[in-house]
Structure formats: C-alpha cells, structure tokens
C-alpha cells in the first residue's frame, strides 16, 4: 500500500460511502471524491496504458489537464469513453473501465511496442507505412488502430437527452477560484448580470486546496461564504459543472453543463448535458494556472504526479498520494506541497531542487538537494525510488511517489482561440494571454499573478473596471485579509539533464525528448510541424501539460527564446465536448420541423401514404385494399382522373399575396412573360428567370383586383422565390409601390381534375362556373354553399378540365370531405404526388426535374412566352447572350420506347444508334420518366440536342445504372390531348 485515505481532513463526507466499480472490482469512495481521488484512496495508481508504447501510466493531475487517467464510464448505449477520472464526480454505482490495454491493465500485450521503441520514433508511422499505398487501408491501419485505440465509440443509439440553451449577461466569469469569486462578488454587488461558471462540481477553485486563512476563516469557509452571498443576488447565476470551452465572435461563449453526469439514474425530464451559448457583454477569464510538469528520465511511471495535484488530493480529498514522497521542483510550489503533505503525516523522502541558493525552506527534518537533477526512476508498475544526480554523483533515494513542480502555465486557451497568439513573458518565464480588447479580460493566476492576495485583488479590480465601463458604479471595497501567502516563483527548467531513461513530454501520446530532437534534425522544427511530426499535444488532452514544454525544448535545443518558437494554435474546444451535447434536441423528429398541410387529416382518412417533400409531408398515393404496390394505386388514380375526377392537395404550393399600385409592374419585371395587362379575374402561367437567363421557377399568378394579385410558386422554391421577390422589391426597385406577404399557410388549396370536375365543384359553389361564365384561366372569389368565401381558379396541371379551390386553412378538411362526399357519385378519388407527376408528364408539363438550372425557356418550349417588348425583366439581358440561343441546344422532347414493354428511367443519357457512350457523343438526358397508364407504356421527358427537329428519330436511351439500353422514338412531349380539347369544355 502506498496511496491511502488520510484519517481526517478534506472536503469529503466521511459518513457517506459510495460504492463504485473499476475494471469490474467494487471499491469504495466518499461523497465529494472524484473518481481519481477515490482510486487513489484505494491505492489504484495504475489507471491506463499509453498510446504508443502501452507503458503503464498513473494519475498525474487533479483536473482537466489529465493526460493519463482516461476511463470509460457507463454501460451499453450510455457509455462515455475517454472520461478523465480526475474530473469525474464519484457517485454510487459508477462503473468505470480502464482503456487502451489488452488483455488487461496489468499484463498488456502492446507493451511489446516498448521493446521496439528504438524503431518507433517521431514520424515512424509516416516513414514506415508509406508503401505500397494499398497496404495502408487493408493492413497497416487496422493493426495500428487495434493496438492503439483509445476508448471505444459506442455504436448504439444514445438514449440520453441533451439540449441547448442561450444565456445573456453583462459579465461572464470563467473560473470560481479566488480571482473569479472576487470578480463575481464585485460585479454582482454593483448590479451587473453575472454568470459565474466553473467546470468543477464544487466551486472555489484553488481555495479548496488552500491551507491558509482568509478574513480569519479557512479558505474553504471563505469560498463558501462568498458563494452564499452570490447565491443571494438575483442578478448572479452560478453554473457549476460547466466548462466554458470556446470563445467565438461577438463575445459569444460556448459552454457545456454536465447536468446529470454525476448520477446513476438520470431523470428523464432533464438532459444529461446542456450546451450553452452565452452572449456576454464582457468576460473575465479567471481560469488559474496549470502546474508545469518536469521533463526527466522515467517521469512517466505511476506515482509521478504534479506536486500541486498531490496537495489537492491531500487538502481537498483527504488522500495521500504516497507514504514516502519525493519532491522535484524548480520553484516554491514544490515546497508548499511538501509542507502540506508533511503536515498530514506523509513522509517527505527528499526535496530535489534544480536551483541553487534557494530561499525556500524545506519542512523540518526533510533533506533538501539543491542543484539536483532527477535522471531516472525505479520501479516497474509504480515508482519505488528516484535516481538523483548532483555534481556528477548519482544517488538513489527510495520513495513511493514523486511530486514534480516545474512552474506555471497560465490557462489562457479561451483568450487565444480567435487568432491572437500567446505572448512570452521573459520575467515570468511563461506564456501570457495577448491583449484581445476589452471583451475578454484575463485576471489572477491566469494573468500570471500567482499569489492569493494578487488574485483576489486582480479579480476585484478588473471586475470594478468592467462595471464602471458598462455604466455601473462599484463601491470601493476592503480586500479580504490573507494570513499566509507565498509567491510561487520558479526558474524555468525545460529538461532535467542527464536522463538515463526516456524523459516524456506528452504522456498520452508517448512523446519524449529525443522525438523533439529528431523532429528538429529532420526539418520539422517549427512548433506546428514538430507537433504534427511527433504528435506532441495531439492527444485528447490537446497538450495542456505538454505544449509549453515542447516549445521550451524546441527553444532550448536551438538556443533561442521560447518567444521565437511560440505556441501551437489554440482552438475550441478547451476540453472535448460530446456530439450529443452539440446536437442538443436536434435529433429524431426534432431534427427538422415537419410542415403539415391543412388537408393532412383528410389525406390520412383517405389512406394516404406520405412522402417527405422538403419539410412537408405530402401524400404520395392513396392505397386501397388489395393494392400491393405504389404503381397499382398510382395507375388507378391516373386513370380515374382521366376518366372521372380526382382531388389532390396542392396546399404546399408557395402562395404570395401581392398588393399595390405597382404590383403589375413588379410582376412584369420578375416574370419573363407579360403581366402588365392581365385582366382582373384571370390567371396566367408565369415563368421566372434567374439573372443569367436560366429558368428559376414557374407558377400561376391571378389578378384578383386591379391592385391585388395572387401568386403561386412551386413547393420546392416557395421560400427562395419569396426571398428573391423581397430582394427585387427592396434592393433593386425600392421605389415601386408594392407590398406582399406569404399566404401559403392561410389557404387549403385543392386541385379537382377530371372530365367530371365541374359537376363536383358546381355542387359546392353558389356561383355559375359553366365554361361560358368561368372559362379556362378564369380566377376569382366565389361563395361556397353555406357562405364560406373561397378562391377558385380554372387551371390545370393534368391537362383535364380542372379547378383549384382555395379555402381558409381551418375549413380545408371539411371542404375536402364535402368534395369527396359530393364526388362519390361521380367516382371521385383522392390522388397523390405520384399520380400528379404521371398526369403532368403525360401532358408534357414541366417541374423542377426539367428546370434544373441549366434550362432556358426556349429549351423547355416556352421560347415564345419570353417577352421581347418588355424593356426589362430579371434575366432578359443574358437570355439573349451567345450560347443560350445556339441552334444545337438541348430541347425538351418526349420519348417512348420502340418496344412498348421496355422501361426508361430518369437520369439516362441519349446516344445516336451505334454511337459509343462518351461525353463527346452525348446527345442529351432524360429528366422525367414514368409508366403512362393512359398510353399503356413508359413515357419520358428528355432534353435532346436540337430535339424539336428530331421528332420520329430513333435514339438510344443509355442507362448504365439500369444496365440496359432502350431504343426510343423522339416525339412531341405532349402525349395526351395535344390539341387541348379536354381543357376547353
């Protein structure tokens, strides 16, 4: 036994035992523990294996920078891999497993890599697995992945709930240590809306591990009192378990709150994690400083730990990291740890200080070795001693844990995430945050002020300045009195000389000093290159411990200043964020809204099978009993519309009400055909072009009164057309007196089509709708029997006698029911999108399958519609340009297979008979195809070079996907009723 629970002390509840599992074994911790402190209390030092050499590794830190203690927590679909044991809050029933070991943590097969380590230097993967290329995917990668895998991703559906939330504040304080608490207090008292966020489950930061007294009480009691006051302020929000992971434009911060990661059974009504977007007028970074590891021989064995972490485990968790601890330090912080451990009854084997003439005082009776260097450690799976070199003499000192303290790295990630680079401070021998303006201010030890007094003062002062800047008055306040305070100064030591074993920089990725040297020799000395060449800092901890040491080493090896090496780029996220949190509630049925037509209920009653159409659900077809395929239903619906009558929901069409004295002029400019003289009571087909002359959208527009038009667009482009019209009205022609609004949702719109359509519609409508009174393309307001006002349009997509009836959406279902009821005697059926599509293809009508952005009006057979008289309209100028009027452009034609039982599919290309399939020989393509129940064979709409001159020609429909070439005859695209006899009845 080495690590153990102290008999007293710590912020743990010694009356509350929590049972948990580690690698299947049941252990006991205390309420207030992290998983790491509980493992240490159970003397479980060995918690993982390293990535490359599979070396045994132990807990190094007591926080978010932990490189080694990554575990998998949870079972089944709720498994979280790569969780840091040092921040995982212990709860009863927690089930954790070590990672990256096979078959077991103690006996790891991959450790053989360690024997091969001379061959596994930096760049090894790049150099070795280069050739042959095909081997990479099939041989090398699977082996490397199996051997090196970190935690495994669970492929099951995540059963947990996540959500996102916005927050707004005057001041966001990140970190609740002495700096953050003081800042929040000062700002909160001044009346600012303050958010205080901290990643820990217990707030107080470094105060929780402090032994000094503040204002006559313990540091912990001071923190508690401060938090109590903050909680009492209505303008202050305290967010524990919340990691602020990113700083984005306009001072928006990303944060993740672990709402229920610390409970065995999450409540269903709460998310397990909540992603916050915090829009902060100002932010104060009080994120503290990370203790810098020392790079010495054998520094990666379990039992080697940050001295400050040892102090935290002792003071906050009541756990000793060992019974006999050696301290290796280059500054005062190591002594502080030694004193605190000694006070808890832990033996200090020795303090080895890299400096000479040290003013710091070792605890009574503890041996101090100045100008010393640790060159190796003893022990296999845990430390049993250290080898110290001093003035050429080596000495072995027995110990069961080593606390290392190499100085401080202020935690400045957030301040560096938007491009500004960290700045080297020669005085402090560390990188500080750059000046990033007044939106984000760094304070306390994050700003290089390491004393407790300095932190408290800096937090208070900077918060007061922010308050004043935002127009709040913060009364000057007396600062809390700190009894004992040390200034943890240090002398940078990038590498402890004389190492007799590998001296690691990046523990998780197994990068050691020689790797950095190799990178430098091979020309990868730039800090960003060295990172990628050695993989230093590329593990899940993103180099929190290793990054600055790599910079220091690169500088030392070249004899230049770390300022000239710089740091690698800081990017969000500060610590990993789960994909679940990033997705929030946007999954399953909440991933995208579903738009439902007012006739949805009607369609359901009539047996609709729905299909996604953009955000809409639309009926694809209406299955009747006995019908086994969609084709059977569709064929029946098509035949019924041609023979009797059918009802189709067209409510999803975009609908726009256009008002104003210049409404007609506006329409005249956005359509390529003429609208200025459209009479009141008439509908007209309209074609909109893009400015480049290609067709954008089509639809009908009706004139309801001289200054009121009603436009329909396609379903697909309803939003786009609206935005386009808004752009035209607001930006291109702001002086036109026209206003418009969407009425898509106001109207339930129904197409009633078929030879018996008038019989059905007339039965519901008061007004006379005979051909004489209401001819083709008539449009107007009618009264339904019973008084309901409706809009009626005599327009046809199917080529049959047809009406579109629009009624207020709420009444839609009742009106549709009435039409079905009235139509029963005439054999009415409901028809869906599939039948609609077949009907329009039979009639040669176009949709966006034809208007794919490469088609001009003339290509589609609308050449004569384009107004030559109009002085201007969108697309006019470029529609006449060279290339858009060429004679060999592809023109829309119909196709029918020469053998009637052969099939044509959309997407097929057209070739002359006997021609080899090639781009050069390409004659065109099929845009739409279907089986025509009316004609009894397949039909297609296609674009063919000079197609309109080639009716009667035989062409090969080349369909590589279907695997069969079909010979088809080119024909007029209007297959049914080319003379429009059915329309004008």
């Amino acid at each position, binding site marked *: 036994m080495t690590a153990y629970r102290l008999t007293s002390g710590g912020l743990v509840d010694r009356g509350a035992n929590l049972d948990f599992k580690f690698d299947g074994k049941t252990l006991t911790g205390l309420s207030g523990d992290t998983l790491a402190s509980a493992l240490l209390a159970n003397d479980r030092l060995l918690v993982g294996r390293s990535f490359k050499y599979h070396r045994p590794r132990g807990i190094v830190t007591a926080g978010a920078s932990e490189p080694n203690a990554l575990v998998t927590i949870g079972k089944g679909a709720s498994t979280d891999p790569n969780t840091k044991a040092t921040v995982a809050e212990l709860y009863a029933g927690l089930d954790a497993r070590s990672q990256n070991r096979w078959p077991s943590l103690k006996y790891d097969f991959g450790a053989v890599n360690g024997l091969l380590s001379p061959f596994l230097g930096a760049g090894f993967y790049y150099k070795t697995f280069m050739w042959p290329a095909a081997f990479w995917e099939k041989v090398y990668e699977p082996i490397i992945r199996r051997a090196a895998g970190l935690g495994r991703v669970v492929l099951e559906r995540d059963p947990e709930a996540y959500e996102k939330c916005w927050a707004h504040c005057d001041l966001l304080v990140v970190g609740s240590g002495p700096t953050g608490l003081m800042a929040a207090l000062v700002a909160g008292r001044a009346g600012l809306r303050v958010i205080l966020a901290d990643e820990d489950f217990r707030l107080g930061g470094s105060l929780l591990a402090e032994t000094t007294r503040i204002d006559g009480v313990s540091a912990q009691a001071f923190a508690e009192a401060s938090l109590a006051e903050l909680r009492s302020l209505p303008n202050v929000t305290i967010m524990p378990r919340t990691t602020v992971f990113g700083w984005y434009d*306009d001072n928006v911060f990303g944060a993740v709150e672990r709402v229920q990661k610390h409970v065995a059974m999450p409540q269903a009504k709460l998310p397990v994690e909540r992603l916050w977007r915090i829009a902060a007028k100002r932010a104060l970074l009080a994120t503290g400083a990370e203790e810098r590891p020392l790079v010495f021989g054998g520094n990666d064995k379990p039992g080697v730990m940050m001295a400050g972490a040892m102090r935290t485990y002792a003071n906050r968790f009541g756990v000793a990291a060992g019974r006999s601890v050696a301290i290796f330090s280059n500054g005062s912080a190591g002594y502080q740890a030694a004193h605190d451990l000694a006070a808890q009854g832990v033996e200090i084997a020795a303090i080895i200080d890299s400096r000479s003439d040290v003013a710091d005082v070792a605890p009574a009776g503890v041996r101090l070795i100045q100008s010393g260097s640790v060159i190796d450690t003893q022990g296999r799976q845990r430390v049993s001693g250290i080898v110290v070199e001093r003035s050429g003499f080596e000495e072995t000192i027995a110990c069961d844990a080593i606390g290392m303290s190499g100085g401080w790295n202020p935690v400045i990630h957030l301040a560096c995430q938007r491009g500004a680079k960290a700045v080297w401070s020669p005085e402090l021998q560390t990188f500080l945050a750059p000046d990033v303006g007044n939106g984000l201010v760094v304070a306390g030890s994050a700003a290089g002020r390491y004393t407790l007094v300095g932190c408290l003062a800096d937090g208070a002062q900077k918060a007061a300045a922010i308050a004043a800047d935002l127009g709040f008055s913060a009364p000057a306040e007396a600062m809390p009195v700190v009894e004992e305070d040390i200034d943890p100064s240090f002398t940078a030591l990038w590498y402890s000389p004389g190492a007799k074993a590998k001296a690691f920089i990046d523990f998780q990725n197994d990068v050691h000093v020689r790797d950095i040297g190799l990178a430098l020799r091979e020309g990868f000395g730039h800090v960003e290159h060295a990172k990628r060449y050695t993989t230093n800092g590329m593990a899940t901890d993103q180099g929190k411990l290793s990054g600055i040491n790599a910079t220091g080493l690169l500088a030392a090896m070249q004899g230049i200043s770390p300022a000239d090496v710089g740091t690698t780029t800081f990017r969000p996220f500060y610590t990993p964020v789960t994909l679940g949190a990033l997705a929030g509630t946007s999954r399953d049925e909440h991933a995208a809204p579903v738009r439902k037509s007012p006739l949805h209920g009607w369609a359901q009653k009539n047996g609709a099978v729905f299909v996604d159409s953009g955000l809409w659900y639309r009926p694809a077809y209406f299955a009747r009993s006995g019908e086994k395929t969609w084709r059977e239903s569709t064929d029946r619906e098509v035949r019924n519309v041609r023979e009797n009558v059918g009802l189709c929901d067209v409510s999803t069409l975009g609908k726009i009400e256009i008002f104003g004295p210049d409404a007609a002029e506006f329409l005249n400019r956005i359509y390529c055909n003429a609208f200025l003289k459209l009479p009141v009571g008439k509908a007209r087909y309209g074609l909109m072009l893009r400015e480049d002359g290609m067709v954008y959208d089509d639809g009908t527009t009706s004139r309801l009164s001289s200054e009121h038009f009603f436009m329909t667009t396609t379903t697909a482009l309803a939003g786009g057309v609206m935005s386009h019209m808004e752009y035209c009205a*607001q*930006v291109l022609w702001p002086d036109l007196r026209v206003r418009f609004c969407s009425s898509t949702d106001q109207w339930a719109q129904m197409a009633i089509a078929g030879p018996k359509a008038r019989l059905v519609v007339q039965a519901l409508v008061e007004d006379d709708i005979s051909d004489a009174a209401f001819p083709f393309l008539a449009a107007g307001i009618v009264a339904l029997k019973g008084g309901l006002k409706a809009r009626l349009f005599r327009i046809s997509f199917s080529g049959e006698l047809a009406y579109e009836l629009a009624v207020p959406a709420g009444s839609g279902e009742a009106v549709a029911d009435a039409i079905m009821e009235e139509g029963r005697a005439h054999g009415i059926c409901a028809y869906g999108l599939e039948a609609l599509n077949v009907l329009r293809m039979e009639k040669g009508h176009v949709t966006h399958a034809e208007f794919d952005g490469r088609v001009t009006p003339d290509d589609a057979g609308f050449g004569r519609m384009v107004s030559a008289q109009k002085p201007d309209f969108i697309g006019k*100028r470029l529609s006449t340009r060279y290339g858009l009027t060429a004679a060999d452009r592809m023109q829309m034609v119909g196709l029918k297979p020469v053998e009637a039982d052969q099939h044509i599919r959309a997407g097929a290309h057209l070739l002359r008979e006997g021609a080899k399939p090639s781009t050069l020989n390409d004659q065109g393509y099929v845009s739409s195809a279907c089986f025509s129940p009316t004609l009894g064979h397949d039909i297609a709409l296609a674009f063919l070079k000079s197609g309109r001159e080639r009716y009667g020609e035989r062409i090969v429909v080349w369909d590589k996907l279907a695997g069969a070439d079909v010979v088809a005859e080119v024909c007029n695209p209007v297959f049914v009723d080319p003379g429009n006899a059915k329309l004008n009845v």
Partner: protein
Amino acid sequence: MASLIHCPHCGVRPKEEFSIRGDASLVRPDPEASDEAWHDYVHIRSNPRGRYREHWQHVAGCRRWLVVERDTFTHEVFSVTDGAATAREAGR
C-alpha cells in the same frame, strides 16, 4: 463570420436568423448596358480579405435585406443598414 448581427429593425440576433447573398456593392446594370457589364454583374465576384459589404437577409426576422459591412478576416462588423434605404441613397 460574426456570431451576432445587429439588425437595424429587430436588434441583436444570432447569425442563424440570416442568410447571405453576397457582394452588396454590385449595381444592376441598365438593360442596354454592355455584355461586359452584365457579365461582371452576374458572374464575377471578388473574395476580398478585409472590409466587405454584403447583402444579408434577416429571413427568420423582419425579412428585410440588409447591407452588412464586415471584415472577412477579423469578423468585425462595422455596420448593418437597411438594403432599401442604402439602395435609395445610392439612387438606384
């Protein structure tokens, strides 16, 4: 890109409420203008580093077209004005 945009009509809004069209300095040429003028207007875009004026529509808000002047490198937004007002001032 900015995270928040100050719509002159609606106030501060997340960027998700907007859609971006592009260069706001383009002026639609006269229908009789040269091929080159129209070619430039329809097809040619610069991709500047630095200050740039763009048309953004507040699609989920007031649906007005706005002129957003911003820095494509620093992401700083200098001004957001109504597109129609800007067009009128420019005498379009």
